[in-house]
């Protein structure tokens, strides 16, 4: 079960991971973007990690909304509105839910990813973070149908996301900055897909 404390633990963990991986994310973005993805994400997640201490939150919903607004206000770039919208929408299905189980978290993740799609209008194989989200949602649903608990479903989602991330290697980018490179974007892993997999791996460690 995931409650306010576990969501806060998730964000604390993710901030640590992003800090460690910031240079790697920036290097990925150097190859096909503008060398700022790790810097952008680190700037936002540091602020998010500080929220739990600065303020008392009444619910998971209120907390995750604030996480979304904080990312929108601090990350900038393409990933700011995308991750910001993800968390703002993630909060919706968790309204009134103190302890979210595998079903509720699944509904929340779907809502969050719908937000990313509405904001960025990416399609599968555009070589964006959506290529790491889409297989994760599928795997999560399959695991849930097979009777997995929250941890099992999140682990399945994280593993599928990692495969989606790796598959961005051979894709030609059609969205975001990398699309300006055309064919030259092939042969590089997408930075946003990488930060998405890190987020799901972090969720599997902390939410259940």
């Amino acid at each position, binding site marked *: 079960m995931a409650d306010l404390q576990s969501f806060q633990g998730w964000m604390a963990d993710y901030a640590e991971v992003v800090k460690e991986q910031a240079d790697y994310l920036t290097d990925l973005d150097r190859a096909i973007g503008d060398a700022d993805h790790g810097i952008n994400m680190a700037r936002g997640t540091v602020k998010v990690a500080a929220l739990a201490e600065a303020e008392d939150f009444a619910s998971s919903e209120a907390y995750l909304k604030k996480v979304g607004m904080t990312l929108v206000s601090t990350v*900038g*770039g393409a990933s700011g509105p995308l991750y910001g919208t993800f968390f703002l929408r993630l909060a919706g299905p968790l309204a009134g839910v103190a302890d979210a189980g595998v079903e509720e978290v699944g509904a929340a993740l779907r809502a969050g990813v719908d937000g990313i799609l509405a904001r960025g209008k990416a399609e599968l194989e555009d070589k964006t973070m959506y290529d790491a989200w889409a297989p994760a949602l599928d795997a999560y649903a399959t695991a849930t149908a097979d009777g997995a608990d929250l941890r099992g479903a999140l682990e399945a989602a994280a593993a599928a996301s990692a495969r989606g991330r790796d598959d961005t290697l051979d894709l030609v980018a059609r969205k975001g900055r990398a699309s300006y490179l055309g064919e030259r974007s092939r042969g590089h892993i997408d930075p946003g897909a990488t930060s998405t997999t890190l987020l799901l791996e972090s969720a599997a460690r902390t939410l259940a």
Partner: protein
Amino acid sequence: MKKLINDPADVVSEALLGMAAAHPDRLRVDHDHKIVYRAAGPREGKVGLVSGGGSGHEPMHGGFVGTGMLDAACAGEVFTSPVPDQMMAATKAVDGGAGVLHIVKNYTGDVMNFEMAAELAAADAGTEVKSVVTDDDVAVQDSLYTAGRRGVGVTVLLEKIVGAAAEEGRSLQECADLATQVNRAGRSMGMALTSCTVPSAGRPTFDLAEDEMEIGIGIHGEPGRERKPLAPAKDIAAMLVEPVLSDLGLSRGDGVIAFVNGMGGTPLIELYLMYHEVSQLLEGAGVSVARSLVGNYITSLEMAGCSVTLLRADDETVRLWDAPVNTPGLRWGA
């Protein structure tokens, strides 16, 4: 990395301190939000013009704030779009009752952040906001399935021309229509001789050998579409001008504003040399230059290289171009 900085993390905020100190008569800077305003504040009944984007393109956009051009510019981190809080604050502050026009360069980050700002501003106060997205870079294929062409040099010309129209008291709709028309009438193509170093990254965004150049470069140190052996200026000018001419469909007898822009690390002597080549090519094509602009106006940190922008210009466009402007970056007639 060799730069005139104190701490990479403070580059944008300390540069804004410098702008405020250098131009107290013309500019006021909100340092918390990283917004450059006109010192005089909004004018009652005038449409407010707000632009913004990543830093590192100076003088764009903060240097184009002032009479005859922008009312406010939001500064993002280097090469990273500003955030919606900034655009919202700027929009509210410059609204003189006639609405606010957002001038946005077509980059995914900029577009999404300005979009969120417009949504939040509409839900919040009653300020009427319209936006125009510039996308003039012919190096990028425009299609429904990509992020579309980038906004580059035309942005500078558009901010000047629409700024003059707003100053004349045109309505928000008229300003937005004019902006759309100017964007459609202009195209650009850029090239780089060197890469550039984002201060927080500490090393060049890409490597370019002594004898190589990138054609079709943007303004963020992102690699261009193709890498070629270095060539004489005459040949480079042709590589830049020809795609622009053909994409714009310019033909004999047409008039243009011709803009040769430096990327930040190329001396003016080379830009003038390039302008000569460009003007020869235009003459050969029978295109007449109504007005010209040569210099560093939309830059990519210390990148060496240049871009060429041509804007189809009728008498009205030229009249608005000639109208007084008084900003740190562009100034005449005032």
